[in-house]
């Protein structure tokens, strides 16, 4: 069968799954007064459309920050503005200042879900296929199979199309960054990643590997010649992109500080709700939250995070290859997830993306991790009434990966033995994938 027909069928399957999941409820459905993330996104459209730019992040009479104030960087706000323009064309009541609070209707839900789908079609899905076709090995059928498995990763589908978020935009842009870097288009790759960073500040989890890879590459090319030129090119373009995104806020330093204050709410504590990282787990035995002061907690998490990120970053600096880069992405994002401050359970999607990229080389580990990551979000999904789609998509993903990936390998026994061997030799540390492969 031709490649294009296989690819289009995979895309259609991915889109069908996504849209079918979107039939279900979203976060905060019919739960006044605060509702949930869905209402937050709708509220941001309202704020972005009705208020001038410099008021978006400020606490004013028109913009009460305690009711879902904007806490993502400016690109999210611009995206919300774009959606708001479309919303205004269809039904102005959806983004009316103040009066549209808590607006819920089936047509509005359809609109919101469509915005997510369009973002997927434009950003995430093309990036997945580009990655699988140009940056992974194997026959074309294997590439298509890997792409299908990545597309059907339940965690992202359930959060974006169930709970309701736009992770596909930031993860899609980050993936474009990976594709750019892997294809040798460093400038475009770093640009894409900068945009991702300006969409969601959580992409900082991925930033260190990008930085170390590019720096390492520059060093390799010689810091006196081409390397320096490359370094300058990249730095200038990154700074220019930042400046462009933050342009409306650069007029006053106070503005910038306010935005940063919204993006990094250190006042909210070490963690909230239940999240599958060390702090929350440790808190069961040792009440860290009460034992240490807030500043001490901040310092401790910072120190531990950097401690665990350092080895892979240094390795990447000295040996900037794609393989090291992918492993460093996994390592960095997992270290941040496990030890960082104020981590949400949805942040597991950040390690999940690089693990998806490892599907070809480490199928068993990747599949296992991706299933566990989805499971770790189960309490959130249950709260949103997404048990049925969770069960179906997880089972489907498990079955699909086991069937497709094992069918395309020589024998599944080799698969199991190889991975188990690495497992025992690497003194199983779920976080240190780089250690795992090194052995």
């Amino acid at each position: 069968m031709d490649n294009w027909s296989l690819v289009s069928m995979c895309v259609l399957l991915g889109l069908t799954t996504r849209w079918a999941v979107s039939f279900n409820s979203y976060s905060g459905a019919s739960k006044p007064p605060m509702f949930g993330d869905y209402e937050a996104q709708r509220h941001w459209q309202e704020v972005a459309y009705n208020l001038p730019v410099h008021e978006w992040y400020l606490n004013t009479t028109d913009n009460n920050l305690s009711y879902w104030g904007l806490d993502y960087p400016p690109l999210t706000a611009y995206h919300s503005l774009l959606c708001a323009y479309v919303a205004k064309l269809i039904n102005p009541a959806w983004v009316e200042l103040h009066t549209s609070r808590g607006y819920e209707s089936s047509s509005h839900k359809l609109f919101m879900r469509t915005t997510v789908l369009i973002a997927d079609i434009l950003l995430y899905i093309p990036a997945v296929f580009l990655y699988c076709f140009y940056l992974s090995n194997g026959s074309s059928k294997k590439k298509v199979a890997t792409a299908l498995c990545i597309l059907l990763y339940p965690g992202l589908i359930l959060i974006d199309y169930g709970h309701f978020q736009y992770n596909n935009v930031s993860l899609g842009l980050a993936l474009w960054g990976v594709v750019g870097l892997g294809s040798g288009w460093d400038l475009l790759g770093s640009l894409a990643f900068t945009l991702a960073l300006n969409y969601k500040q959580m992409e900082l989890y991925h930033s260190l590997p990008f930085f170390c890879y590019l720096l390492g590459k520059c060093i390799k090319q010689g810091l006196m010649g081409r390397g320096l030129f490359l370094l300058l090119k990249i730095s200038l373009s990154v700074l220019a992109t930042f400046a462009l995104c933050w342009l409306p806020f650069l007029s006053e330093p106070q503005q910038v500080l306010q935005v940063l204050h919204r993006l990094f709410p250190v006042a909210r504590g070490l963690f909230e709700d239940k999240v599958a990282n060390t702090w929350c787990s440790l808190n069961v035995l040792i009440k860290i939250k009460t034992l240490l002061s807030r500043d001490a907690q901040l310092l401790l998490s910072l120190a531990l995070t950097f401690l665990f990120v350092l080895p892979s970053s240094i390795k990447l600096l000295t040996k900037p290859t794609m393989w090291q880069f992918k492993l460093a992405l996994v390592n960095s994002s997992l270290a941040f997830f496990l030890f960082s401050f104020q981590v949400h359970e949805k942040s597991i999607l950040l390690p999940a993306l690089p693990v998806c990229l490892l599907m070809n080389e480490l199928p068993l580990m990747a599949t296992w991790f991706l299933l566990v990551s989805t499971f770790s979000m189960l309490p959130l999904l249950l709260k949103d009434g997404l048990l049925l789609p969770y069960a179906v998509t997880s089972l489907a993903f498990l079955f699909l990966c086991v069937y497709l990936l094992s069918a395309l390998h020589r024998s599944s026994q080799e698969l199991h033995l190889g991975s188990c061997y690495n497992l025992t030799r690497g003194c199983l540390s779920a976080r240190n994938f780089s250690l795992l492969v090194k052995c």
Partner: protein
Amino acid sequence: MASPMNSDSGWFLALALGVSFIKCLLINAYHSTDFEVHRNWLAVTHSMPVSKWYYEATSEWTLDYPPFFAWFEYGLSHVAAYFDKEMLVVRNLNYASPATVLFQRLSVIVTDVVFIYAIKECCKCLREDKGKELLWKPSFILATLLLWNFGLIIVDHIHFQYNGFLFGVLLLSVARHFQSRHLEGALLFSVLLNLKHIYLYIAPAYGVFLLRCFCFTQSKTGKSFTVLFKTCIGLQSQRNPPKMAFFSSLDGSVHWKSFSPFRFVVLGSIVLTTFALSFGPFIALGQVPQVLSRLFPFKRGLCHAYWAPNVWALYNIVDKVLSMLGVKLGMLDINKLPKASMTGGLVQEFQHAVLPSVSPLVTLICTLLSILPALFHVWYRPSGGRGFLRCIVICALGSFMFGWHVHEKAILMAILPLSWLAVEHREDARTFLILSTTGHFSLFPLLFTAQELPIKILLMLLFTIFSFTSLKKLFRGRLVSSVEATYLLGLIPLAVICELVYPLTPWHHTLPFIPLLLTSIYCALGVTYSFIRLYISLLTVPSTTSKGKCQ
């Protein structure tokens, strides 16, 4: 190139599970009034005694399927009791709690196991080429075309019906005939008739085939009648020059002396026993007229509220155009025209203005006339299982084209068996592509909600892309001519107009039936064309291996 997929049955399980997962995801999609219909039947069969089943009329959705289906619902109702007892109360009209939806949807998904088993049996009957890559194997293509059939998924798992397991019984019966297990096949078909009487459409095919191939144990090597027959119907085949036609007719006609009364009696008793089991209780209660009136409600009009894309839809539109022309040209008085409320589109009784009105008898005669040549062909030139299958498709399509009050969903009865023929013959593949694409498109108006629009488009594209690319690879080369391709591509602008553009126009409220009309007429052309193509291929395809034999 790619290493082949490992285990042989692994791919079948993967396909079956994959589609089942999609079906599970559609549990919370829109469901039509058919959902309430089946909930009502669960309630009626559970709470009422058998004597009241066909009299119960609390809900407008009275029991109008044969008794075996009622017993099936009765069996389901016992499982339903574990999900939500409230759905089994007859008075709870339109009761649709989450547990009820879950139960009903799961029941369709679980009973599809019969369909999956039947497909496995069908795949065994195919002629396989060893050493072909998996994605090119006829059995893989057939399994996907059947398991992932777009029409079946949206009718069963969104609109809500139980066609999956019924088609499973049908395909299993056909597979048994292929395997020469005729008695089992006959039994399965009798059971099927007592599950849903719409399969009466293809009962003539079964009757003629079983009589010819089972009751007559041998075929003669005579020639006279077949040559006569061919000359009578004026068949001039370019591919078979007269000499060839003479030789190829050296077989197939009936050897009258080989009639086996024993076989006939066994067959008859199987059929009669099944019907007796089914209707027995109602015969004893003297309720047969009531049951029959429920099963065959001829008071309904020539066309369903949404015109199925058949001949009568074309007939209606020609009548309407002529009457409008007649009024414009002053030849007809507008006040004398019957008040057929075309504006509503929900007309049941449709009085034709210019062309003669059509009665049920006329439709019956037309249907019989349309399927008679195919039946003759099976009688005089039986080509084993494949000839029988072709006859089934023609009977189903003929009844669809000319039947009374045909539902657009009935097109599936022609599309699904045709899939089987499509993976074996090039001509059938061509017909299948046209019929399935237009037939499936004609099902679009069933899902009219905005939420389901992306699903139906995505699944339709998925199925269409797969069927075109897989059959093209299987038969190497172009399968649709330019004209046919243009017609099929015309479906895209039609979809855009009906789904996106028209709802935004002011006519959307005054003339809401226009998109339905356009879809129906456009698809009727494709369906009619496929019907003609099927007949041409029936009468020109020479019997290849099975020279008039029944095996």
